[in-house]
């Protein structure tokens, strides 16, 4: 394969990946801001998407960051940004006490089950009927992979139900603190830092 072929292949593949991978938006910017401020040690970003947040934390804080995503196209996009990409279901394949910081910008839009469109973009955006379908299992398992003294950074949208998410946080045995918050025309986004209560 010539160099030109390789570049063309890469561009085509990257274009194909971009179409099915969540690209950085306001929520990503907010999570990155919080993560750059708070993250330390070994970091996991769950649902890394394009890998943009993970790459930013790795670059600005010089930390080791693993980016995991259910979507293999996303894991590849993250890898192309220099992040260690893993295809995974939330925290399932990670060891107990493995990470000092875990970041997650979950798919959070409440979605009518009749309107689910069943492709990678839906996986990246839809939080099921409640908007909390991924937040719930994430919170139930993240404590296992978190090292003692570790912190979870979770992005919450007002569309997902702030109080309902706080109830799940409490149930999972975490204290919470808002690190950054920003209001947009249709939603308020907050990044919560969660620490074991």
């Amino acid at each position, binding site marked *: 394969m010539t160099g030109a072929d390789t570049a063309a292949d890469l561009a085509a593949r990257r274009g194909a990946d971009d179409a099915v991978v969540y690209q950085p938006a306001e929520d990503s910017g907010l999570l990155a801001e919080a993560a750059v401020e708070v993250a330390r040690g*070994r970091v*996991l970003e769950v649902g890394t998407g394009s890998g943009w947040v993970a790459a930013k934390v790795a670059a600005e804080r010089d930390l*080791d960051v*693993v980016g995991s995503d*259910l*979507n*293999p196209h996303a*894991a*590849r996009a993250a*890898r192309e940004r220099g992040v*260690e*990409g*893993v*295809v*995974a*279901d939330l925290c*399932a*394949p*990670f*060891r*107990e006490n*493995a*990470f000092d910081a875990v970041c997650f910008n979950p798919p959070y839009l409440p979605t009518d089950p009749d309107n689910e469109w069943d492709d990678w973009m839906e996986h990246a955006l839809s939080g099921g009927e409640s908007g909390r379908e991924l937040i719930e299992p994430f919170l139930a398992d993240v404590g296992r992979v978190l090292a003692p003294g570790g912190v979870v950074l979770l992005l919450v949208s007002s569309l997902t139900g702030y109080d309902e998410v706080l109830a799940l946080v409490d149930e999972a045995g975490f204290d919470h603190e808002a690190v950054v918050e920003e209001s947009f025309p249709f939603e308020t986004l907050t990044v919560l830092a969660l620490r074991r209560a």
Partner: protein
Amino acid sequence: MKESLMDVVCCPLDKADLELDADDRDEEEILAGTLTCTECGEAYPIEDGIPNLLPPDMREEASA
């Protein structure tokens, strides 16, 4: 994947240790190979430098 990833990953099914079998590697990382659970024997592929650690039932769905 870098070999250091082995410090943080486990079998998604039973959380047991994984054993690395590298088929292709460069100075920095493993590009192709298999991660096998030391407990249940389930094998997880590493392709293009990316380990796929989805449980087998989800792996089928994701590759569709």
